[in-house]
C-alpha cells in the first residue's frame, strides 16, 4: 500500500516539469494545419517547452475569453475579436495582425478550379456549405461574396451552415455538400487538395479578412507566451503561413 502511494507521488512529481512554463493557444479553425506546423517547428527550436493548441471558432473563443477561459494566446480569424478583448481589458498589449485570410470555392466531387461562383446555381449542386455567418468570420465573408455576386437569393435554400470553417470543410469533404466556400488555408492542405482543386474567390467581393492575435491576461508574466508571439513574426513562421495560403499583412499586393 505504501509502495503504491509512493509510486503515485513519484509519478506526480515527475510529471511536473522543471521548466514550468506552458502555454495554451486558442486558434481559429482555419489555422489547423498551419499552426500545427508552426508549433512543431517552434518546439524543434525550444524542445522543453509545452505548447498546446485548441482549435475552434473565433467567436466562441472570444466569448470564452471574456468569461475567463485560461488561454494564453488567441489567434482569431477576424482581428475584431482580439480588439474587443483589448477593449474589454482581458488582453495585454495590442491586437497584432498575422495574416489576411482568403475564401475559396471547393468541392470533393468535382474540380473546383474549373468552377465559378455561378456554377453554384447548377442543378447538380444541391447543397452548399458555408460557415455560420453569424459568428464565423469566413462564413461572413462567404455571405458577402455571394451577395455581391447577386447569387445569395438564388442559392440560399441550398445552404447548410457549419459551426466553424473546419466543420464546413468536413461537410464538403464527406460529400454531404457538393460544394462549399472554405478557407484557402484548409483547401491547400494535401488532405483536401488531393480531392480536387479550389477556386480563389476575388477579394473585392467581400470585406478583407484581417486576422489578428493577442496575448490574454492569463499570459501575464509568462515568458513563453511572449516568446511564441515573437516567433510568429520570425522567418520560419511566416514561411509556413505563406505555404498555407495566408497573405502576410505587409505584402497585401503580393497576391
Amino acid at each position: 500500500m505504501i509502495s503504491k502511494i509512493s509510486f503515485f507521488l513519484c509519478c506526480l512529481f515527475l510529471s511536473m516539469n522543471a521548466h514550468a512554463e506552458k502555454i495554451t493557444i486558442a486558434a481559429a479553425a482555419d489555422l489547423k494545419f498551419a499552426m500545427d506546423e508552426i508549433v512543431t517547428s517552434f518546439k524543434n527550436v525550444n524542445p522543453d517547452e509545452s505548447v498546446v493548441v485548441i482549435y475552434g471558432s473565433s467567436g466562441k473563443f472570444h466569448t470564452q475569453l471574456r468569461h475567463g477561459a485560461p488561454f494564453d494566446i488567441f489567434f482569431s480569424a477576424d482581428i475584431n475579436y482580439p480588439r474587443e478583448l483589448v477593449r474589454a481589458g482581458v488582453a495585454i498589449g495590442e491586437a497584432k495582425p498575422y495574416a489576411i485570410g482568403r475564401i475559396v470555392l471547393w468541392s470533393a466531387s468535382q474540380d473546383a478550379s474549373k468552377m465559378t461562383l455561378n456554377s453554384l446555381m447548377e442543378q447538380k449542386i444541391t447543397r452548399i456549405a458555408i460557415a455560420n455567418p453569424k459568428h464565423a468570420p469566413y462564413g461572413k465573408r462567404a455571405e458577402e461574396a455571394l451577395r455581391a455576386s447577386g447569387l445569395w437569393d438564388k442559392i440560399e435554400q441550398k445552404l447548410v451552415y457549419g459551426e466553424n470553417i473546419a466543420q464546413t470543410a468536413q461537410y464538403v469533404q464527406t460529400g454531404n455538400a457538393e460544394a462549399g466556400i472554405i478557407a484557402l488555408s484548409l483547401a491547400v492542405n494535401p488532405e483536401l487538395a488531393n480531392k480536387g482543386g479550389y477556386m480563389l474567390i476575388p477579394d473585392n467581393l467581400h470585406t478583407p479578412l484581417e486576422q489578428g492575435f493577442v496575448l490574454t491576461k492569463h499570459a501575464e508574466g509568462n515568458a513563453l507566451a511572449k516568446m511564441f508571439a515573437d516567433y510568429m513574426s520570425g522567418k520560419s513562421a511566416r514561411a509556413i503561413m505563406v505555404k498555407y495560403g495566408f497573405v502576410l499583412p505587409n505584402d497585401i499586393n503580393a497576391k
Partner: protein
Amino acid sequence: MYLTEADLEAVWLTIRLACIVTLILLLVGTPIAWWLARAKTWWKGPIGAVVALPLVLPPSVLGFYLLLAMGPNGPVGQLIQTLGLTPLPFTFWGLVIASVFYSLPFMVQPLQTAFEAIGDRPLEVAATLRASPLNAFFTVAVPLALPGFLSASILTFAHTVGEFGVVLMIGGNVPGVTRVASVQIYDHVEALEYTQAHHLAGVMLAFSFLILLSLYIWRKKPNNGRQHE
C-alpha cells in the same frame, strides 16, 4: 417581442421534431421493449446493451457516424440514392432518424421496466380465458403498463427537445429545417446576442420544467400485476 420570429420558428421546429420522434418511438420501441421484457433467450443481453448504447455514447459520436452513414459514401446514403430519394443529412427527416436512434433507450427502458413489472401471471390468466397473445397485449398488458407509457413518452419527448450534439453534427443549422431551439440558443451565444439567448433559454427551461412536472405529478405508482404477497 420577447422571442424573435427566428426563435419561434426554432421552438416550433423543436416541438414538431419531438412529437414525431416520440410517436415513431412508441411504434418502434414498444415491440422492442416487450421482447426485451419477455424474452428468455441469450440475445436479450446483447440487444439490451445495443439499445442502451445511445445513453453512453457521446451525442457527437453518434451524430458523426450517422452523418457518415447517411452521406453519399455511406451504406444508408447509397441505399437512399439508389431509391432516388433526397439525401438525409441536413434535412428534417434526417434529424428525425438520428433522434430516433438517440432517444431509443428513453422509450424502451421505461417500457421494458413496466412490462417486466406485470409479471407472467396476468397474461397466463388471460390465455386461460382464451385471449390471443395480441389481444392479451392490448387488453391486459397495455393498461397495466400505462404509467410506463406515460413516463417513456415524456422522457423521450423531453430528451429530443434537449438534443444538441447530434443536431450539430448532422443538422447543418438550416433555418426552419434543422435549426432547433438548442442550436438557436447556441447561435445567439456565439454571436454575443446574450439577451436573445437568455430569452429563448428561459422559455425552453420553463417548457422543460413543465413537462417534467407533469410527469412527476401525474405518474401513478406502479402497482400493476403485483399480487399481495
